[in-house]
């Protein structure tokens, strides 16, 4: 039994997706539809054809149509991943499965994780946390670190901006911690939505009820996503947002640290 999966990219020398030098495999499909999504091409579960807006000096000039997403076997993914083992060994790095929401392709993900374990490759799963807990239970033994995204504490707003309720996400996080898993919280600072004083305060007190020792990765907003929408003829519902200044980011970090949490 060899599950086939759908991925839309493999990025080598990924240096922000966990410890060391990593290869990040992007699995396609996501149950959320965040307004600010950086990878809109990842949302649909299936390969899809997108028309790229052609710009000069762009190497894709003559391609026009591009299919995003490709069906691959576990072996094919592993062949790419294993190419960089020398770097993983040297840097205590490994592979990161991201998305989309990697947990959506649970059988495929599980096979990949098992293969990594067999080859002694460190694994990180970057998740929105929106999945049935049984999926976590299935893969838990093969995951070294979860990068777990939190967004908006207020459930109504969460529903509005991401398309789903955050109850399941919060519940799963509690259970993962209870199961003793290594979890790092990631917080993407969407201006005005995530980075408001109120939301941050709520997130902080929520985290503190879980575990004082949790570290929180603060990810500044990045406008790159917007261009992608333009290129793909999609409408970005949050266009015109400005990236935070360093001082603003430091203020956010300070807010976490004042509350006794580790932010980086």
């Amino acid at each position, binding site marked *: 039994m060899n599950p086939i999966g759908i991925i839309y990219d493999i*990025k080598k*020398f990924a240096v922000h997706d966990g410890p060391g030098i990593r290869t990040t495999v992007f699995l396609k499909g996501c149950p959320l539809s965040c307004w600010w999504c950086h990878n809109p091409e990842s949302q649909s579960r299936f390969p899809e054809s997108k028309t790229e807006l052609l710009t000069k000096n762009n*190497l894709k000039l*003559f391609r026009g149509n591009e299919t995003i997403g490709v069906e691959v076997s576990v072996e094919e993914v592993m062949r790419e991943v294993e190419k960089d083992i*020398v770097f993983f060994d*040297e840097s205590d790095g490994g592979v990161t499965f991201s998305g989309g929401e990697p947990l959506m392709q649970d059988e495929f993900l599980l096979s990949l994780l098992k293969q990594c374990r067999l080859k002694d490759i460190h694994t990180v799963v970057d998740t929105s946390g929106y999945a049935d807990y049984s999926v976590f239970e299935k893969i838990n033994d093969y995951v070294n670190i979860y990068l777990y995204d939190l967004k908006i504490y207020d459930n109504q707003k969460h529903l509005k901006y991401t398309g789903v309720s955050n109850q399941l996400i919060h519940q799963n996080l509690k259970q993962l911690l209870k199961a003793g898993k290594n979890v790092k919280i990631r917080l993407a600072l969407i201006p005005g939505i995530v980075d408001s004083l109120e939301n941050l305060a709520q997130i902080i007190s929520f985290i503190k009820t879980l575990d004082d020792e949790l570290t929180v990765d603060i990810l500044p907003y990045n406008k790159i996503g917007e261009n992608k929408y333009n290129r793909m003829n999609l409408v970005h519902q949050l266009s015109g947002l400005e990236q935070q200044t360093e001082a603003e980011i430091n203020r956010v970090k300070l807010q976490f640290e004042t509350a006794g949490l580790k932010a980086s």
Partner: protein
Amino acid sequence: MNKRVEKLREQSISAKAAISRERAVLLTEFYKTGQAAQVSVPVARALAFKYILEHKTICINEGELIVGERGEQPKATPTYPEICTHSLDDLDILNNREKVSYTVDKTTRESQDREIIPFWFGMSIRERIFREVDKNWKSAYDAGVFTEFMEQRAPGHSVLGNKIYRKGFLDFQQEIKNSISKLDFFNDPEAFQKREQLTAMFITTEALIIFANRHAEKVRELIADETDANRKKELGKIAEVCERVPANAPTNFWEALQYYWFVHLGVITELNTWDSFNPGRLDQHLLPFYRQGIKDGSLTKEDAKELLQTFWVKFNNQPAPPKVGVTAQESNTYTDFCLINVGGVKENGEDGTNELTYLILDVIEEMRLLQPSSMVQVSKKNPDRLLKRALKIIRTGFGQPSVFNTDAIIQELIRQGKSLQDARNGGSSGCVETGAFGKESYILTGYFNLVKVLEITLNNGVDPVTGKEVGIKSGDANKFTSFDDLMNAFKNQLQYFINVKIKGNIIIERLYAQYMPAPFMSVLIDDCIQNGKDYNAGGAKYNTSYIQGVGMGSITDSLSAIKYHVFDQEKVSIAALLTLLKNDFNGEENFRQQLLNETPKYGNDDNYADDILREVFEMFFQMVDGRPNTKGGTYRINLLPTTVHVYFGSVIGAMPDGRKALTPLSEGISPVQGADRNGPTAVIKSAAKIDHLRTGGTLLNQKFTPQFLEDDEGIQKIVHLIRSYFKMDGHLFHKSWCYNFNINSF
């Protein structure tokens, strides 16, 4: 840096390069005395060297601690008419060229016209070379299949070892005398030649001592006129130093540096040796003097730093000897390539980093000079601290230091037959070249244009750019039915050109051995004194000749494109492809984009392309490595381009990788620009598929964005990247000063 250093540095940077006629005039004067005709060639060369050092202007710059210039003032650059005589046109080009120019004053031009050119006409090495090589060599050379280093500059890729820090020139004189006394005229048919050679060496040692004493005298004159009490005291110290070294072994840090500097001036005055003479492992050589000085209180860390900084300025005051002909017009080569090594391992194999390593790195960071250049040798035994310190300097954006793999260098040297100790005491010099410092003459003989050979193969021996037949008839490409057919034809063509190059080299080596011995250099490099043989005639302990392959990325991608699109996918016939190339893809931009974007390319950790790379490497290696040179040594390969990938590209039409006609080739073993699309780990993996250990150096240029190196985390990731590459035997990781340099940017 303090005020003194700041001032000296500023003077050096702002000094205008000029042609100095002094050396050429003195040399010619000497040969006109008729003395040269009465003695053997080496003795004549030695007497000429002595004559120059006895008569040249002594220059002591205000405020300096280490003294001595090759010209009358900083950046006054001599010519070497016995190697290549500059024509008046050459001088005009040098004076007027847009890129880095050399001022030529009226008197210099006149003296060149009236004395230098008439005297040396027909006798220069350059003229001898072009008279002696055959027509196959000339047509390949004209087509840009290879370059020839020795037609304008003397062989001399060597770096000094540690002997000058233990012995004075009086000791060397004793060694030379011993060697002469041991000559066996009854049984050694070369005894006379050896005596002449050793006599010549002896004369050059006298010359350098005289030269140093002239500095001492000049400084003592200055003391009399000096009003500043501190400077008076300093000048007194300088005079003492110049009276002590190089005649005697140095006793302190200052003397060690001044000694080296006199030796350096001797080397670059004797001949315009190709590019790289330098003190090598400076943090090892100077350490005993540094520690002793600190211990007995005669030296502070600040003193040592200041001395090193004034020493640094001296290198920057010596531009490269200017070229002639087309190279003078096109090349903006301006500096020599003195590459000071720090880090690495000690002779016993232990971690070689010490407090001086880091002090020298501080000097490099503060001085930000084009010359000397610098590199850190990184062994698995060195701490990450060394690598991190180097990266923090690199991120300041002036290109230094380069980062080399000590463990690979040692294995490369050992494979070539050097002893483990000699290998550990070695390093890299010039651009990337591996050498056993103080014991090896490792001569770069010329760049070899692998891509041009493929172009000629595709045209059955004809150079399509000129229409001339320059190669052999290797087969009509239109009739190739498989990729193997093409590779076989390429192999035959490559073999032909390598043979042509080596035949030329053998002639040129002998011309130098016979007409242009280097007795002063021979004193410095082991075992010339013991062997009674000249550096240019095989006197060194190790004698290596290199041919440097250029365009690995471009040729791999071109072959891969033919294999993929013509033979595997059958998208285009070879005839149609050749027509496209002939027309420089005119009107076929879509297809060119396919070649650029849909071909398996080198630099992506894709074996489809990388296997071709390995095959080309293997052919080139097998055809060159191990062939004998005339000095008892062997031919080797390395893979580096300096700036020649631009020239080599300018003689090649469009190629199947999508490269347009006459544009630059890939450089070193770096992928074609833009062909690598999977990030640095894939580039490194691809590059590691070359067997670096069988070369004498490769150049992979990894550029980082300064932002990436901004924080400690970024630096840590690059440390991991470098360590991984070195684990895979990569030779060199970062290098940027070989090209793209611009003197105005510092």
